[in-house]
Structure formats: structure tokens, C-alpha cells
């Protein structure tokens, strides 16, 4: 790192309000390791706010997404989707559609050459529904035509005869309902048991909580282009966030070897978990193989809402026992997650929900029973912070109840119970990573509260209901609430979390080849920073991602910051060794005594000074490395086991204004403190936390994809209200606690998920404080936020 870099980092850190103690560290490190560079040097290396390389293209609208792709002679696809949530398909007649002029192919379940069903853990999801339709919007057939309108009209001309069946929409009734799938309606059941069931506390509070169905609502809907290959295979261009897994599923369905299916990852227009929909990719590939033409599809917003993975709607019942001082004695909980019709990653979500059911608190005795069940509701799957977010809203509701019953300040009650390094989770796993929960809570608690606007002119007030709105100052009450949340990083329960990266140096340019998808989480920028830091090369390119590269796994659970970042670091170090070893040998010193900065190699004593280009002497250096964290184990039949690689914590204080007559809520301020291990890019860290808090705010106030009898009621952005700029509050990142996690590369923890998990609980707590109402349902409905209503 250079002095300039250090200074830039200091400025950035100051901007996000990081604990000042970390700043001198960076500066002293900087001055110790490098001479001051020319003043115009751009920021580079770790710990500085390097801007993303694609920022200009994205803001100018020239960045290509999958929906912008084009191929000569392409056909357009349309997917016929079920208008019913549960029905038996009696017949499918595609003759009229196939005979329409301009239609090249119509495919149904009968045209799937390989495995009829696919799925991440359980292969239970058909490419096209064959006998049974299990959710509204399930694909039934697909058409390729020379025009998108022709394709859409042809899809509408397919005649499907249904026998309507009673949909199973209440997860509580799923246990007794007819099985929706041959393997039954119970996807997973975890009866966690930790400690002594006979123990009781002096104070007991109970609560029932419901969490709605948040949709990831990415700004760009699903899209893809499939191009047939001369070897009988197919290439699919799409914004996949887990390309190798998508390839393997697709190859199995197409009846091809994985090598003959290639997924090329295009620009990702927003991803909050699993982004792409197999109901788009698989029909595209089948149609391309069938017609021999490139086939393109760009989903409508309605299709997008119907078919991609949603957050699990969850019903939670809690009983907390505490002693008279407010120390938690026992937590009993039942958690029921609505997985929709297909298993997808529901068992992972349930594991997270059960393991974190007590939150970042010390709980000596815990009995948590969790179920994930099939219903005919829209499919649930991986959406950032799944499992952890639902339980956070519930256990924090319980903590507020307990505080009220004991007459304690809610922050004080939480402070008496916080988890720390060395404590046990209810799964029996010891928390070995930094767990500065008390420090986080103290930071948000002690941060000054925002001033009431009473001294400002009245026209500057932004009341619930918006500018010039119906809000009335006499009916507005202010509330303050706290939330403490935790998430796990990396896949859990024995998943092989491996990533592979290649670093190449040629001339003055380094290239990173790594199949970790840049979804907006900042991996591409981080990879550039890592190579800059280790090799001292400014100009770092990130190669486009496709499945011919070694697998890196899904962009989920902060994996790429950890494993892919770790792989890039190792590969870069191997290149560095290759570069310096000959020089070191020549000068009779260890290569550790040589440093690289600004393209120059210098020795500790200044005797040797050369440039990277000279040392390379026209050679290209390549190195490939893997990063694989320590293994984990599955939760056993009582929910015990070391299931998680790492944990990250967050504290949020929400300040809300509630119009207690209309029940309208405006979040005034969110103050967050987060356990980040180490800040690798201050500006990016800040934006990730702001984005996460805002997504959490949406889950707390408005975002709920509503269904009635299994039918999605309003699959559009008018019916599904996302937070707007006026809804996003002032966000203060009060403190980023930089306590290195020794097992993580650079000591850094993933940042994105923890704020999503914690913000809804904090907002609910603040509305509870403002209205005195229980607030046990998210999103918060206006009628439940009306005082005395």
C-alpha cells in the first residue's frame, strides 16, 4: 500500500464514521511500506475506496445486460405458465400453436430429453409441468418464433385442459394435506434440543409472529440468450449467479454431458440471492437445441414476480424464559417455513432459522423445532439473509416484550444477554470468531438521537405520508427501537465451499480469471484490489465469467469475499513468488525482503531497484490456486453440530415517526454498527450496508408479494411497493468494528446480509415503541400501527 492509498483510505473511512482508532494503523502501515508516490496516483490496494471498473458504463447506460444481447437469426421464446396454483393437467394441445406462421418449435414436458426434474438438493422440480401444476406461474410449455409477439400469441394458443385441485396455501395444513409431491409435504424437520427441558424462568413471555413473502425484485428481470453449438451442445448467456450449478442442472435436463453445455455470465442487473429462473434458462436451451437457432427471452415483470425464488413466509411461535434480572434462561420456539412447491434451498434456510432462533444472545437452554413444508404458494428459495431474517424479527419482538414485562430499557435488557467469542450457540457450536455484539449495541445506543424537527420551518418536515401528504404533526409519534442480528457466512452443514482463481501477469497488466460472479457485491473490485496489493500492478483486468473456468460456487452468503477472494490472494502470491524468486536468488536474499509497489521492485535496503516489466522480461506468469475453508458438519437429529464456518453480527437502531391515526410509518433514521473483520473498500462497504438496510426496511414496511388462494394478486411494481428515495431514511454507519477473523482471508467478514437481517427487527421495535402495539407481523400493516385501534 502506498502513502497516497493510505490517505485516500483514511478519508473514506472517516466518511463512513469508522472508529477512529483504525485510521492511524492504515496510515502508519502505508508510510512504513512505501515511499510517497506522485500526487496523482489513483487509489489502489486493499482498504481504499477503489471505484468499480464498470461504474461509468453502468451510469451511462452502455453496460450490456442479458436483455441487450443479439445474435444473427435469433428466435424469440415465450413460456406458457400456469394460471392456476394447483391443477391436474389432462391434456396439452400444441397443434394450433405449432401451425402458426413464424413459429419454429413448441416444447412441453414430452420434449425434455434428459432428467425430467431438477433441483439443488432434491431433484423435485420439473422443467415443464407434466401431470401436476404446483404453483401459479409454473412453466408448462415454451415456444420459439421469429418474433416476440408471435411467440407470445402462440404460447397463448396452446390449449391446456386442467382439472382444478384445491390448493394447499396454509403451511399449517400442509402436514395433513394430500402430498403435493411423491416424497411428501415435509421438506425438513429439525427438532433442536439444547440443555434441560425442565428449567423454567421467573418471567415468561410468549409471542406469535408472521413474516411475509419478500420478493428480490431485481431491477432487471430475468433474461437469456441460448446459442446452439456445432458439437450438439448449447451455450446460454444469462446473468446466472451460480453458473456451474445451473450448467449441471441444465445438462442433466438436456441429456448432455456438462462439457457440452456452457453458461456465459452476462452483466447482472441486480441479485439478492439466486437471481435467474430455471423456468427461463431450461426452455431457452431446449428451444435452441430443437431449432438450431439462437433463442432469446426477456421475461416480463409479471413472469419475474411469479417464478423466481422468494423469501420464505414464516410463522414463528416463541416462549422466552428469563430470571428477574432479565438474563435469558430458556427459549422455546416453533418455526414453520412455507417453501412453496419445490424444495430448492429450503433446508439450508431452515437450518439457519433454527440455529439462529435465539439470536446473538447467551441462552443456556433452547428447544427449537423447525419445519419447512411444501405448499402451492409461490416458490421460496435463497434470498439474502434467509432464515436468519425471519427469526431476528421474532426474537427481537420477544426481547422487547421481556423488557416491557421487567420494566427494563430494551437496550439494557439486550446488553445483559449478548453473545461473545467463546459462548455456545444452541447448536452446540462454540463461537470462535470475533463476536463484538456488546460493542455494536453500545455504539448504536450511544449515538446521538436525531433532533425532532420542531425547530425547523413546518414546510421542511417530512411526515409519514410524504411531502404535502396527509400527515398531521399532532398525530405523529416518534419511536426508537433496537435490533441485533446475526448471519452465517459461506454454505453450512458440510457444504464443500471451494473456489478456484487464476492470476496471470503479462507486461504491466494482470488478469484475474475466476468464475465468481460480480453481482453488485463488489467482487470484481475486490479482486483488483487484492492483485494490486500483492503484485503492485495498477492495471488489473477481470476476465468475463463462463463455465469453462473452474467452479467458484454461488454468489451467496458472502462466499466470494471469503473463498474467491482467498483464492485470488493465493494465486497472486504464487505469481509474486515466481516473479521475485529469480531476483532474490540473484541478489542472495530471501524474496520476502523485496517489495513491489507502483510497478517497481525494491529491496529492503534499497540496493536493488527494478521494474516489474524488466523482471518479467517478456515472460507471462500464471498461477492457479484454491481456497477451501475448514470443514463443517451437518446438524444432527437434535440440531447439534458445528455447522457454520463463520458468523457476522450487526446492530441497528431505528428511529421512526408513526401517524398513529392513519398507521403510516416513516423511518427517520437507521443507525448501524457492524462486525466486518476488516474494511477492504470503505466506499463499497458503506453502499452495501445502505443497500442492505434499505432492503430490510422494505421487508419491514411494504414488501410482501400477496397471494389469495395461491394466486399472486398483483405481480407488478405498483402492487409490490419497493422503498423509494423518500422512504429510504438517513443512514448512519456508526461503527465498523474491525476485529480480524483469523480464519478468513484478510480477516474480513462479508457485509451485505447482516443489515438485511437486522433492519426489519429494529424498525418493528421502533414502531412498537411509538404505538404501544405488539407489531408481530412483517411487513407492518397500517391497521396494526394505529394507536388504540
Amino acid at each position: 500500500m502506498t502513502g497516497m492509498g493510505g490517505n485516500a483510505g483514511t478519508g473514506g473511512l472517516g466518511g463512513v464514521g469508522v472508529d477512529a482508532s483504525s485510521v492511524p494503523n492504515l496510515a502508519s502501515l502505508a508510510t512504513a511500506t512505501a515511499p510517497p508516490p506522485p500526487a496523482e496516483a489513483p487509489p489502489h490496494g486493499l482498504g481504499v475506496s477503489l471505484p468499480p471498473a464498470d461504474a461509468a458504463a453502468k451510469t451511462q447506460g452502455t453496460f450490456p445486460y442479458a436483455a441487450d444481447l443479439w445474435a444473427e437469426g435469433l428466435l424469440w421464446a415465450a413460456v406458457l405458465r400456469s394460471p392456476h396454483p394447483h391443477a391436474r393437467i389432462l391434456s396439452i394441445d400444441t397443434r394450433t400453436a405449432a401451425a402458426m406462421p413464424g413459429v419454429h418449435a413448441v416444447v412441453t414436458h414430452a420434449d425434455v430429453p434428459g432428467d425430467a426434474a431438477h433441483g439443488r438438493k432434491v431433484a423435485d422440480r420439473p422443467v415443464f409441468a407434466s401431470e401436476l401444476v404446483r404453483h401459479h406461474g409454473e412453466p408448462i410449455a415454451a415456444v420459439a418464433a421469429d418474433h416476440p409477439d408471435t411467440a407470445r400469441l402462440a404460447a397463448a394458443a396452446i390449449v391446456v385442459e386442467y382439472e382444478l385441485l384445491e390448493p394447499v396455501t396454509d403451511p399449517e395444513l400442509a402436514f395433513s394435506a394430500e402430498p403435493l409431491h411423491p416424497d411428501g409435504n415435509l421438506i425438513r424437520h429439525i427438532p433442536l434440543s439444547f440443555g434441560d427441558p425442565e428449567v423454567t424462568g421467573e418471567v415468561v413471555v410468549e409471542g406469535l409472529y408472521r413474516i411475509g413473502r419478500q420478493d428480490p425484485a431485481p431491477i432487471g428481470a430475468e433474461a437469456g440468450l441460448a446459442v446452439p453449438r456445432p458439437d450438439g451442445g448449447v451455450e446460454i448467456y444469462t446473468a446466472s449467479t451460480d453458473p456451474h450449478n445451473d450448467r449441471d442442472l441444465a445438462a442433466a435436463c438436456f441429456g448432455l454431458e456438462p462439457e457440452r453445455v456452457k453458461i456465459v455470465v452476462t452483466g447482472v442487473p441486480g441479485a439478492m440471492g439466486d437471481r435467474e429462473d430455471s423456468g427461463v434458462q431450461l426452455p431457452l436451451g431446449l428451444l435452441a437445441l430443437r431449432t438450431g437457432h439462437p433463442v432469446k427471452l426477456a421475461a416480463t415483470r409479471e413472469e419475474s414476480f411469479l417464478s423466481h425464488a422468494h423469501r420464505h413466509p414464516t410463522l414463528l411461535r416463541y416462549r422466552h424464559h428469563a430470571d428477574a434480572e432479565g438474563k435469558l434462561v430458556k427459549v422455546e420456539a416453533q418455526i414453520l417455513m412455507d417453501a412453496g412447491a419445490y424444495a430448492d434451498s429450503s433446508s439450508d434456510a431452515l437450518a439457519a432459522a433454527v440455529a439462529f432462533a435465539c439470536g446473538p444472545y447467551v441462552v443456556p437452554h433452547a428447544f427449537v423445532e423447525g419445519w419447512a413444508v411444501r405448499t402451492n404458494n409461490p416458490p421460496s428459495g435463497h434470498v439474502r439473509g434467509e432464515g436468519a431474517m425471519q427469526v431476528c424479527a421474532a426474537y427481537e419482538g420477544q426481547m422487547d416484550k421481556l423488557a416491557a414485562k421487567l420494566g427494563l430499557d430494551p437496550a439494557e435488557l439486550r446488553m445483559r444477554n449478548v453473545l461473545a467469542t467463546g459462548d455456545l450457540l444452541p447448536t452446540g457450536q462454540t463461537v470462535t470468531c470475533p463476536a463484538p455484539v456488546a460493542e455494536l449495541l453500545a455504539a448504536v445506543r450511544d449515538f446521538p438521537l436525531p433532533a425532532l424537527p420542531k425547530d425547523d420551518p413546518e414546510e421542511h418536515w417530512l411526515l409519514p405520508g410524504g411531502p404535502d401528504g396527509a400527515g398531521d404533526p399532532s398525530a405523529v409519534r416518534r419511536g426508537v427501537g433496537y435490533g441485533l442480528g446475526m448471519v452465517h457466512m459461506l454454505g453450512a452443514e458440510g457444504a464443500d465451499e471451494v473456489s478456484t482463481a487464476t492470476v496471470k501477469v503479462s507486461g504491466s497488466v494482470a488478469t484475474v480469471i475466476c468464475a465468481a460472479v460480480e453481482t453488485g457485491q463488489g467482487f470484481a473490485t475486490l479482486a483488483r484490489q487484492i492483485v494490486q496489493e500483492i503484485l503492485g500492478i495498477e492495471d488489473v483486468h477481470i476476465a468475463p465469467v463462463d463455465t469453462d473456468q473452474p467452479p467458484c460456487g454461488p454468489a451467496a452468503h458472502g462466499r466470494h469475499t471469503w473463498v474467491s477472494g482467498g483464492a485470488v490472494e493465493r494465486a497472486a502470491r504464487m505469481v509474486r513468488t515466481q516473479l521475485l524468486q529469480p531476483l532474490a536468488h540473484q541478489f542472495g536474499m530471501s524474496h520476502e525482503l523485496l517489495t513491489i509497489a507502483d510497478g517497481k521492485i525494491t529491496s529492503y535496503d534499497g540496493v536493488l531497484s527494478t521494474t516489474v516489466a524488466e523482471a518479467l522480461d517478456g515472460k507471462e506468469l500464471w498461477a492457479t490456486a484454491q481456497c477451501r475453508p475448514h470443514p463443517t458438519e451437518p446438524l444432527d437429529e437434535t440440531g447439534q453440530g458445528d455447522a457454520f464456518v463463520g458468523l457476522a453480527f450487526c446492530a441497528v437502531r431505528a428511529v421512526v415517526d408513526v401517524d398513529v391515526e392513519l398507521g403510516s410509518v416513516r423511518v427517520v433514521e437507521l443507525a448501524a454498527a457492524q462486525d466486518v473483520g476488516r474494511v477492504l473498500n470503505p466506499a463499497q462497504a458503506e453502499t452495501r450496508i445502505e443497500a442492505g438496510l434499505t432492503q430490510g426496511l422494505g421487508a419491514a414496511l411494504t414488501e410482501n408479494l400477496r397471494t389469495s388462494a395461491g394466486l399472486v394478486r398483483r405481480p407488478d411494481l405498483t402492487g409490490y411497493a419497493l422503498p423509494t428515495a423518500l422512504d429510504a431514511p438517513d443512514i448512519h454507519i456508526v461503527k465498523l468494528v474491525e476485529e480480524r477473523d483469523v480464519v478468513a482471508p484478510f480477516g474480513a467478514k462479508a457485509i451485505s446480509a447482516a443489515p438485511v437481517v437486522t433492519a426489519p427487527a429494529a424498525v418493528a421495535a421502533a414502531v412498537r415503541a411509538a404505538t404501544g402495539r405488539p407489531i408481530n407481523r412483517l411487513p407492518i400493516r397500517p391497521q396494526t400501527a394505529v394507536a388504540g385501534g
Partner: protein
Amino acid sequence: MCQSCHVRADSTYRTAGTAGITGEGAAGLTMHAPQAAHTVTLPGSLDEAVAALAAMPAAVPVAGGTDLMAAVNSGLLRPAALVGLGRISEIRGWQYQDGHALLGAGLTHARMGRPDFAALIPALAAAARAAGPPQIRNAGTLGGNIVTAAPTGDALPVLAALEASLVIVGPGGRREIPVGRLLAGVEMLAPGELIGYVRVPLLYAPQVFLKATSRTGPSRAVASVAVVLDPARRMVRCAVGAVAPMPLRPYEAEHWVASLIDWDGERTLAPEACAAFGDYVAAACIPDPAPGPDGTEPGTLPPAVLHLRRTVATLARRALGRALA
């Protein structure tokens, strides 16, 4: 007749943008292909527009297109031809006529939201400012809001409370109908007819429009209330939007509250009277379930409907309070 204003758009999707109706993507592609109608007419006057519609009965008139083009893009509507009203300058402003303002149907929400318009018809300006994000307000028009007749149309309760009337132009000349009759479906637009103007009385008295929404940013109304004072006729007029397919007028509540106001004096009411007015309005718009025909006990309203009633009551109380403040 219209002068050379027929613009033919190529029927292939790659060049569908030539008529200026659909834009092209960055790569010269558009996803939503030849939904651009084959014929787009851009008349320069109302008479030309009427003539163009008469010449092509299948043509659909389009002003801001904020509702129409969304329906076209989603494949719900595929007009054979479009008559664009955006170049008719005579309906993009307003004029004064015997105590009334004659508002052009092509007035955009953005224009109506400006202070000079707000000084004339404050409630309509407030509704226009609340009608959506700036992009929608820049394009969407008063006439379009009326023709779309969405239950959540923000201008509609204001027009109902103002007892505005619509000047309809068509092949048979001009006619004028009260806005309520069109919104209630009692009278319809005949083929080839357009809304030319909206006649609104100038009342020179406070007017308030309030809406309850699900978020702080722009969104559709859960319920909206317009309250208009008419001191010359000693009347209070109120309309409630979004709770029914058309704006509702609680006449009894209006008359009752007008009788309480001292029109020659301070024009104030006790808070209790405003609250009673709110409850009166809400009960009129969201009535209790009627007992069954055989005298069975009436059911109770579900909690969500009760909350809606409470919301209407609160909005009406606040609106009247602000109008009388």
C-alpha cells in the same frame, strides 16, 4: 384536415422507433417489438384530431400514454392506429370563462402542480403533485386521468368535489357533461369523441386534497379525500376517492357541516365537529353491512375495511380542518 401529419412507422421491430412512440434500446434493439401502431397521426388541433379519429375509427387517441403505453407494452392492447394529442397546443393550457377556468385536457400533472395553477384551483394542484413520480407527472395529463378512470386516479375526487364538467368534442360537435356522469358510466364517450376541456368553477376559497398511501414515496392512494369550500353558495363539497370504482360524494354530510359553519364570520368549526364530519363521511362511503332481507343480523366489517373507514374519517376530518384553518 391534418396536413401531412401521417407518419408511417416501419412495421419491423428493429426500426419501430421512427414514429417517436417507442424508443430503441442501446444496442438498436427493442424487446417489445412491433407494438408500435402502423399509423400514427399527430394532429395540430382538436378539429384535426376529431377528423383523424373519424377517418380511422379503429385509431386510439393517446396523450401522455402513461397508462396506454403500459398496456401496449404488456400486450394487453394492440391499437391498429394511434392519434397523438401531444401537439394540440390549444388543450395544453387554460383560459377563463364566466367565473370558470376552462382547463385543456392535455394539461400535464407537472403543469397543474405549479404555484400559478395552485393559486387558482389548489386541490387540483395538490392532487397533481401527488399523482406519481416526476416522470409520470411530466407526461400524464388531466384528460388521460379522467379517461382512464382508475379508482385511484388522484384528480377524480377533486373534479367530483368541484362539480366540474367535461367539454366533449366529436364528429357531431361539442357537448358538455358533468364529470360524475362520465365516471359513473351514466354517459359514455361515443366513438370518435375526445375530452377537449374540463370546466372548473373558480371558487376563491380554500380547497384541500389528501391521500393515504402505503409508503412515503409516490404510490397509489389507499383512500383520498377532496374538500372544497364554496362560500358564495355556502356549501362544503367533499369527494372520496379510491374506496369505490368512482369518487363518492357524501351529500348529507356536506349539507350538515355546511349548516354548522358561520359563513359570514370566522368560518371555523370545533374539532369535535370536524371529527363528526369525518365519521359521517366515512360511514356514508363505507356503510355498515345491511341486515339480511329476512331480518338476519348484519355481519361485521372485516378489520381491513374498518381500517379503511377509519382512514377515510381521518382524512376527511383533517381535510376539513385544514380548509377551515
